[in-house]
Structures are given as structure tokens and as C-alpha cells.
């Protein structure tokens, strides 16, 4: 009897308490309101458009009027001869990026952090950020210039006496080129967030370590690394949550049928299939598949991270 009453009381009390919090924080809520409204209108409401993944979308009939076809597009995609290859290429490209270009900004940040404040440090930082602003089209253009059959790299190879390499027509070169140019472009910009985390380290810790006779490497290992661990883990989880998404612009610029076997990914395949006749439904279905896989991976990564460290996204 008593429990029942306190339970009821409990719910009423909880409501009362929530109302009180809302009232107390009303200005904060007002602050957040535009953002919430924005996300609601532009991200949540359009989600109903995802339904065209299950329909045969016809522009003149609109979303509601188009015919329902269920899982047809998914079946069509999974039964493609190339489905396995596309999945493999997408995953591999992302995993290589993760393994090689994820640590790069961390290392760069640790190294820059060790340099004394001054013009040298500032100019190194600024120069390292610059490639981030260069358009991907220009980056690929630069790569072309260096790597074409009569480009600098091949000329250098020839002068040493090695045979020239046709970098853009050999499947084996695609992944390294893609990852390396990605590192070059994103390394500097990515290091900013780690440098910010590092700048928050208490200088007393360094003094204490110095007094205890720690070498520079030991300082990095026992002070710097642990202090950026939460940032690193968070960003790692977020990146895993994008494992199946791969923007196709750079690949489109770099690939050709001769290297489809390593370069053809889900998004480029769908792009080719889409130009045939504006197959919005097909593209949406594949996009939905991508998103679902990404969410699954994200949840898994987050759960693992929570077990292993205390850090997790939620």
C-alpha cells in the first residue's frame, strides 16, 4: 500500500521536478531551441523521404504517389555480381584510412607540442593546415602531374634506371595513393583538436616528471598520451561510424575501368548506375543500407569502448 502511494507520488514528483528544471533553465532551452528546430525540420522531417528506398520513385508522381516495391532495390543491389567486390573495396579503403591516417594527426600533434613556442612552431602549424583548404580536385590534379607517365616521379625512376610505373592504370597503386594523399591533406587540420587537448595539460605534471628524471619520451608516453586519450577514443568511434560511407568525388577523379577491381566502391557504382536514368530510389536504398551498417558499427564500437575504457560516446 505504502509503496503504491509513494510510486504514484514518485511519478507526480518526477513531473513536478522536471517542470521545475525546465523553468529554471528556460533561457538555456531558448538558446538551444533554434538548433533543435533546425535539426527537426531539416534532418528529421525529411527522413520520410527515405521511404523512396522502398518505392519506385517517379518525379512526376512525387514521393507519396510512387508505387511501393518493398525490398526490390535491396535485392537488386545484393544480387549484383559486384556486390562483394564493392563492399570489400569500400571497407578496405576505409580501414586502411583508419589504420594509417588516423594516427598521423595524433603523432603530428604530439611532435608539434614538443617544440618551443615561437615563429617556427607557428609557421609549421599554419603550413600544415593549408592542404586542408585545397579542393580535392586540385589535390588529384597535383597527383596527376607528379605521377603521369612523363611526370616527375617517373622521370626520377627512369634516371635511376628503374622502369616507369603507370600509377593510374594499376589496381595495386590505387589504395596507397588514395590514403597517402588523404593523409597529406587532413593531417594538419586534424592535429588541431589534439593540440587543443594537449594545451590543457597541467604544467605541474611536466615539472613533477622532470624532477623525477623522466626522459622526453617517457613524458610523452605517461603524460601527453593519457591526456588526449578521451579525444582520440571519441574521434575513433566517430570514424568507425563512417566506415561504410565513402565520398565518391575523389575516387571518381582518380579511378578508371582499368582499376575497378580496387577502386570501384559502393558510391561510385551507384553513381554510375544513377546516371543511367536518375534512379533516385536505387541510390536511396543503397544509402539506407550504408547508414544501417554504419549505425551497427558505431553501436558496436561504442559498446566495446565503454567496456575497455571508461570513455564512450554515450
Amino acid at each position, binding site marked *: 500500500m505504502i509503496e503504491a502511494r509513494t510510486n504514484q507520488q514518485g511519478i507526480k514528483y518526477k513531473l513536478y521536478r522536471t517542470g521545475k528544471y525546465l523553468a529554471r533553465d528556460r533561457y538555456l532551452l531558448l538558446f538551444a531551441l533554434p538548433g533543435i528546430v533546425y535539426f527537426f525540420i531539416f534532418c528529421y522531417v525529411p527522413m520520410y523521404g527515405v521511404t523512396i528506398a522502398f518505392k519506385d520513385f517517379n518525379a*512526376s508522381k*512525387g514521393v507519396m504517389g510512387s508505387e511501393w516495391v518493398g525490398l526490390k532495390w535491396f535485392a537488386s543491389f545484393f544480387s549484383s555480381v559486384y556486390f562483394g567486390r564493392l563492399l570489400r573495396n569500400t571497407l578496405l579503403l576505409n580501414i586502411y584510412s583508419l589504420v594509417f591516417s588516423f594516427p598521423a594527426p595524433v603523432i603530428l600533434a604530439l611532435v608539434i607540442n614538443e617544440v618551443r613556442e615561437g615563429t617556427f612552431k607557428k609557421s609549421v602549424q599554419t603550413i600544415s593546415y593549408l592542404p586542408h583548404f585545397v579542393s580535392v580536385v586540385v589535390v588529384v590534379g597535383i597527383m*596527376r602531374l607528379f605521377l603521369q607517365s612523363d611526370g616527375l616521379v617517373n622521370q626520377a625512376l627512369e634516371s635511376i634506371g628503374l622502369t616507369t610505373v*603507370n600509377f593510374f592504370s*594499376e589496381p595495386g597503386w590505387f589504395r596507397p595513393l588514395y590514403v597517402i594523399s588523404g593523409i597529406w591533406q587532413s593531417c594538419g587540420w586534424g592535429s588541431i583538436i589534439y593540440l587543443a587537448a594537449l594545451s590543457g595539460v597541467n604544467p605541474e605534471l611536466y615539472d613533477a616528471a622532470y624532477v623525477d628524471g623522466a626522459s622526453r619520451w617517457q613524458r610523452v608516453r605517461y603524460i601527453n598520451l593519457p591526456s588526449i586519450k578521451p579525444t582520440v577514443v571519441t574521434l575513433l568511434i566517430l570514424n568507425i561510424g563512417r566506415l561504410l560511407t565513402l565520398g565518391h568525388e575523389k575516387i571518381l577523379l582518380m579511378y578508371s575501368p*582499368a582499376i575497378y*577491381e580496387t577502386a570501384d566502391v559502393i558510391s561510385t*557504382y551507384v553513381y554510375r548506375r544513377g546516371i*543511367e*536514368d536518375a534512379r533516385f530510389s536505387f541510390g536511396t536504398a543503397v544509402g539506407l543500407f550504408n547508414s544501417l551498417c554504419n549505425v551497427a558499427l558505431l553501436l558496436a564500437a561504442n559498446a566495446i569502448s565503454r567496456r575497455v575504457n571508461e570513455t564512450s560516446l554515450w
Partner: protein
Amino acid sequence: MKRTALVLAIIMALSLLATVSLAAENTMPISTDKITLVFAIPDNFYAANSYADNLPVWQEIEKKTGVTIEWQAVEPSQYDTIMNIRIAANTDMPDVFAVPGSVTNEDLSKQGIALILDDYMEYMPNMMKMYQEHPILEKLSQDSEGRIVAAYIYSTGQYANLRVPIIRKDWLDKLGLEVPSTLDDFYNVLKAFVERDPNGNGMHDEIGMMCNSWKDYYVFITAFGLPSRIGEFFPDENGNLVYTYTREEFRKTVEFINKLYTERLIDPDFVTTTRDIVESTMSKNIVGLGWQAPGVDIRWDGFAKSGGAENPNHIQINPPVDVHGNVSFFTDNPTRRTLAISANTKIPEVAARWVDYVQFSEEGSTMVQWGVEGISYELDSEGKPHLTDWALNNPDGLDVNSAVRSIGAFTPTLPLEPLEFMESKLSGKTVDNLKIIQPNAQDPLILLPLTATEQETVSDVGADLRTYADEMIQKFIIGSEPLSNWDKYVETINNMRLDELQAVYQAQYDRTFGKN
């Protein structure tokens, strides 16, 4: 107030009837009353002057027709998207509009979007005349029940926009070579270009042949009896469609291109080359043979000159002849769907007459294609239009197309320039060379569009098939796949549901030529 309005309305209606009943020959003006027609098309490709600015050409047209235009011109790249949405709603539609590509004739009639033009053909005598000259246009304009729902236009410019090999004549002269005719000639010429240093700089930096896109090299198929630009499927003598890329003729073509590639006679980076790269390489004065349309030869002369050539002379030549000495190639598709009239328009006769005048009549279409008489074109003694100096050597430095567009002509709804326009644009040597290659040009196969189910099969089966075909062909050319595996490739293609694809295209072909 109400009564005056009623009286005015009756008078207007009567006068409209009067002018309309005299329309047997679609004489201008369409109306002497103030009528406004809402017109929606993609906006001017020459972005600086929007059609909404009331450009000279359209002022003339308004004067001649007596109909005021209310423009709904949308930025070209967004036109289709925006128009699709408006069509889906089908309220408040413009009177006349350009039809987006994804909307089929079936949609236009079944969803009540477009006016059925059969009932208004008496107001469109010029269009009827063009349809009689080119019967395929009528078929293309019809829905599945044979009703005409949109206007299709035929452009004669196809015979000037011919894509053929373009060669450095000055290099041929320097090396004492004839213009190549047979496949062996082409091989020898390319070899000479690469080995004998025709640009005279002492270095073997010449690239024999360089094309904008890797499939352009398929031009050599003419040496084996098939016309260039033949497409994925073509009909044999019995009207059965055959897949091009497993044919023996094509295998020989790939073998030849592979030979050129291995001997470094063509661009070694051809898999990723684009038009910009070709043009910048042309500027180094090292390319001997390309493949493009007329007018480009002059452009390439300019590039070569900037690379140090003294008197570069690019000319268009015929592709290689086959064993019987014949050669042929297809032109671009000369037909294009242009405009439709809204089913809910309040002024159907006016709209029909207006479309007929603007797109199909001699006077109207000349203005829309050539511009304003006295400014961008003049009529010669035979009444034929020629571009003026203002258009060809525009004082503001605009190229011909932009100059003409800046006053409102050459709208995005026109496919190609008319033949005379193109010839007017081209300089002497190009026109002369055009005469040598024109006889070998053939009309392409113009087919009715695919139905929705057919379209699905094409994209379903086609995507994988084309991925495999493109990949294997490139590998054969590069040599990473030996040509001895050709039969395996053919077998794989046949097992990739090629028969389904062929059936779809066969149905389309039969439907066009009325064989069901």
C-alpha cells in the same frame, strides 16, 4: 463595375475568336489584344543575360506575335528538379514549358499535364510540315495511344557536328607523308610522328594520338567494316540487334589499340585523360592525332601555336577505310523534345500558335536560332542567313555562341545549331574539309524512348554488364589481360544476362519501326 467587366470579357473573347479563326496559316500577329503567355524554360546558358531581362530577340518576337511573355526562366542546372516538382503538383503550371528528361510522354498525357496537340494541329501548320519531312518526330512525340503530347524538333546541324580524327597536316607535310587512309597508313603515320620528331625540337616527346575520352579510340572500328560511334547495340540485316563489344570486328579494333598502346603510339595515361588534359597537352605542341568535332581544329591550332608551332594546321580527316575502301560514321542525334503546352492553360489556341511560330516557322525559328537581323545575322541575296561580324568577332570578346546567346537566341531547348549556322561559324579550311568527310556521315538510329519497365531492366542488368565490359576492354588495351582470354570474356558477358538486355533493346527497336 461588374457589368463593364462582363462586357469587356465578351468583347475580348469575341476578338480572340476572330483572330483565332483566321489562323489557317498561322499568320502573325496571333492577337491584337493584350494576352500574356507564361513561358518556363531553363535560363540562358550565357548567364550574364537572363531571359527575364527582356532580351532583344524576345522583344522582336513579342512585337511580331503580339503576345507578351511572362518569363519563368530557371537556372539551367536546376531546371529539371524544379520543373519535376511543379509537374508533380500540376497546379499553376506555365502555359508553355520545356519538358524535363525524366518525364515521359506517357506521364504527360496520363497525368493530365500536357495538352493533347492532335486537337490543335490546325493551329500548328509549320510543325506539321516539319513532322511530314521527318516522320520519326511524330512517333517520338506520341504517347502509347498515339496522341501527340509534346513538340519534337529536328536540327540539321548534325551534318556539321561530325566527330572524326583530326590530324596535324603540317607534320604530315614536313615528314613527306600522305593523309592516312587505311589502318596501316594510320599506324605508319603515328609511328613516324613518334620517331621522327616532327615538332623539330630534338626530343622524342611527341604523343601520336590523344583523345578526350578513352572510348574515342573505338574510331578504328571503321577499318573492320562497322561505322564509328555505332553504340552498344546495332541492327544486322534482319533487324536483329547485336551486341557490339563481343563482335569479331570489335576484337580486332581492341587488338589494334592494344598494339598502339604497347608501342607507345597513343597517350599512355589514356584511362584518366580528360578534355582539359588534352587541351593543355596540345599547348605543348606534341600531339599529332586527335578525335573531335569541326571548329576544334582551329582551337587546337591556337593551342599548338602557343606551344611553339610555327604554322600548325589541324584538319579533319576520314577515319580509316575498310578492305573495300569504304568508311562511315554516325552523326549526333538530331532530334530533341522541346516544348509542351499545359493541359490547364486558359489560352490553348494562342499557346499552340505561339509554339508553332517560335520553334517551327521560318521567321520565328530563325530569330530563336540566329538572333536579331542586322545585329547577329544578315540575310543574303537568296534569303539565307549568315552570321555578321558582330557575332563572329564580337567586340566584347565573346565567342560566337555566347554572343548570340547574349541577345536571347540559341535557347537551351535547341539541340544543335542548324547546318548553316555551324558552317557560318567555321572558317574556310574547316568548311572545305567538312565537304570531304560529310559524304561518309550517316543518320544515327533514332529510337522511341524506353518504357519504364524496360528502363529498369537496362539499369539493372546494364550497370553490371557495362562495368565488366569497360573493365575488361581497358585491361585488354593496356595488356594487363592478354588478348588470348577474349573468348573467356565473351562467354562471361553472354552469361551476364546479355540476352535480357538485348531483348529490351530489340523491343524498343521493333516498336519504333512498327514490327509488332
